[in-house]
């Protein structure tokens, strides 16, 4: 779909972005020490930190990806909401307080603290960098998708814009400013999601007055490289044609034409009895040119409230084991991944003690849980808004806002954009801190001053930002939630087994932890690189040729990492390497 930018949207967007950067400059100028830069001096109030958790966590995947997936495939998107939130209980109940007790700068510091091992720091540093980079990809994809309707820019321009702004923020700021930006962003995101939900319920459901579409919308490319829709030049001009939006109610139960305002339960009940027109994307090649068809797809509301509509989750309904394993694997990764994400883990060092770590996690769970309940209404609301772009599932929530007013669209898009900025900033701060502490200070053993450490982190941030931009360009068009699922799988395979074994298995040795982290990281990355989804989406090859039978690695690589730690620890058990009896509690 081709979008035109509105001056209002541009103004609201600029106000939000300039405000974010100005706040970063102001607060960043106050953080002079490395402790201030990397951990906000441990002085962030727990409530602020809790909402900042929500800001860090509710990334492009949550707002754009989940809402988009619910809008096009119904309940499958909500499965992500459930999995993403469930992971927070692992963080609260077994990780938060022990990690805070170690009280350092990075996850690697925490893991290495009992053995004072540079090897552990280096291995955990590798996993932090890999997870941060993989998690950055969907954020950049989300940014590229957002600027198209907001500013009328191309996808690549959006990716470069976000990468550049974030590098400026991170280089001028640090954990204090990142925390307050996340606090504002998290709060605004939840607030505006509530506003959208109230508007969706107020509007209720109406049967469309348009006649149902019969023929698909067909996008082709002519000899000059111009895109055509049904043979007419694609565009906004008078002699051009744009892609028609989808998402219309064709029938309501009992022959109603409109429901009027509905309550939260009545909305779901009415929707389950409705017939809705959506679209199905079919890609093919004719005479060497790509052809994309958006074919009309009529579904019942009840069908959309069952799992298995999304192609990647179709296996739920089949009697084959590999698709089922793929689904279990994803849900396991979401459950185990949250408590292993570097940019979440470093937030435990920004509060003063364990009680604050616990309280801030509970506040985070409340804010995040509430937001995920709202995704159900935003997603289903978008499904029947008549405003869905069939070419981009990630744009459902902003386009739902546009169906109410341009001002709301501008505000929601700007918040979504700062959501991406905030999450990317958090990830780059975590990755930059990891390079400074774990590689330069840890693995290379260089003794650096506070200012030198900060400088190393900032220079690293520029490089990581550049890598994120390149990766964002390579993965254009993929659903951001799906991409985030991979980041969770890598984090859960690399970091969680090491943390849990350190806390609960007395026989753990430093060699065991190093081996577990490295095996978990590289096994999951290799699995993803050779999986059917990568063959289909990135390599444009037949998915049947993939090295591995399903796309989500967690169910194999998480147990593999546990097993590696156990076996290597068994073989390397000596008095000095073994975890001291009291260490499990103290750590």
């Amino acid at each position, binding site marked *: 779909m081709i979008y035109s930018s509105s001056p209002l949207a541009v103004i609201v967007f600029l106000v939000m972005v300039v405000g974010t950067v100005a706040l970063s400059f102001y607060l960043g100028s106050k953080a002079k020490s*490395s*402790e201030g830069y990397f*951990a906000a*001096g*441990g002085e962030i109030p727990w409530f602020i930190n809790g909402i900042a958790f929500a800001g860090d966590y509710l990334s492009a995947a949550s707002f754009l990806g989940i809402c988009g997936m619910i809008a096009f495939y119904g*309940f499958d998107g*909500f*499965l992500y*909401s*459930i999995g993403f*939130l*469930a992971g*927070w*209980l*692992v963080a*609260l*109940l*077994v990780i938060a*307080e022990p990690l*805070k*007790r*170690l*009280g*350092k*700068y990075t996850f690697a510091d925490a893991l290495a603290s009992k053995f004072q091992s540079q090897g552990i720091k280096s291995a955990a540093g590798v996993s932090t960098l890999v997870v941060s980079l993989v998690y950055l990809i969907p954020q950049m994809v989300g940014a590229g998708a957002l600027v198209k309707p907001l500013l009328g820019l191309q996808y690549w321009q959006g990716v470069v814009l976000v990468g550049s702004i974030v590098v400026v923020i991170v280089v001028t700021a640090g954990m204090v400013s990142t925390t307050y930006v996340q606090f504002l962003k998290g709060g605004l995101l939840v607030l505006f999601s509530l506003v959208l939900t109230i508007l969706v319920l107020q509007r209720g459901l109406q049967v469309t007055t348009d006649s149902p579409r019969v023929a698909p919308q067909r996008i082709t490319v002519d000899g000059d490289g111009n895109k055509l829709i049904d043979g007419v030049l694609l565009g906004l001009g008078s002699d051009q044609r744009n892609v028609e939006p989808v998402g219309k109610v064709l029938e309501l139960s009992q022959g109603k034409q409109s429901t009027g305002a509905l309550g939260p*339960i009545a909305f*779901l*009940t009415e929707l*389950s009895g409705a017939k809705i027109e959506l679209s199905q994307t079919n890609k093919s090649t004719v005479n060497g040119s790509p052809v994309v068809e958006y074919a009309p797809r009529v579904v019942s509301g*009840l069908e959309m*409230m*069952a*799992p*298995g509509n999304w192609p990647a989750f179709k296996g*739920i*309904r089949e009697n084959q084991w590999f698709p*089922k394993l793929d*689904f*279990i694997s994803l*849900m396991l990764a979401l*459950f185990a991944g949250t408590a292993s994400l570097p940019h979440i883990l470093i937030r435990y*060092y920004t509060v003063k*003690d*364990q*009680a604050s770590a*616990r*309280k801030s*996690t*509970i506040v985070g*769970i*409340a804010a995040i*849980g509430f937001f*995920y309940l709202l995704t*159900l209404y935003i997603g289903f609301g978008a499904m029947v808004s008549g405003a869905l772009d069939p070419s981009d599932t990630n744009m459902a929530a902003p386009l739902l806002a546009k169906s109410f007013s341009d001002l709301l669209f501008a505000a929601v898009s700007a918040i979504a954009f700062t959501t991406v900025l905030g999450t990317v900033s958090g990830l780059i701060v975590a990755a930059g801190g990891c390079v400074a*502490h774990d590689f330069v200070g840890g693995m290379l053993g260089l003794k650096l001053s506070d200012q030198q*450490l900060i400088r190393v982190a900032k220079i690293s941030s520029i490089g990581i930002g550049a890598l994120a931009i390149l990766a964002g360009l390579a993965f254009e068009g993929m659903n951001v939630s799906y991409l985030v699922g991979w980041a969770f799988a890598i984090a859960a395979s690399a970091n969680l087994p090491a943390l849990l074994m350190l*806390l609960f298995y007395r026989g753990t040795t430093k060699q065991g932890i190093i081996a577990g982290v490295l095996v978990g990281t590289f096994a999951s990355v290799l699995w993803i690189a050779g999986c059917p989804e990568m063959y289909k989406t990135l390599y444009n090859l037949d998915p049947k040729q993939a090295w591995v039978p399903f796309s989500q690695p967690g169910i194999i690589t998480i147990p593999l990492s546990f097993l590696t730690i156990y076996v290597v620890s068994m073989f390397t058990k000596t008095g000095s390497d073994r975890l001291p009896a*009291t260490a499990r*509690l*103290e750590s």
Partner: protein
Amino acid sequence: MHSHANSTEVEDNDVIRKRQRLGVILLSVFSLAYAGFIGLCMFAFEWFSSTNVYGIPLTVGYGVALILFSLMIALIYGAMSSLIERRAAARGREVGST
């Protein structure tokens, strides 16, 4: 390397052990509910997606209930952990005063 200002929090091992046990028990309870949800999606798909509760499909109802259950468990853990810490602090004061 640089030392961290708030890295030296000292806590009674008994308090840590009790809190850890509480965390593991609550996580086990939630894991069962979560595994049950995944199991129903996978192995009882037809029944799960066609059963209604108060007019809402059970899939959606169970999903929403899981989110609310997460919050409930978080609040229970927060309250009980605070209770464990307060009791330990009171015991410490009693020992100190005798």
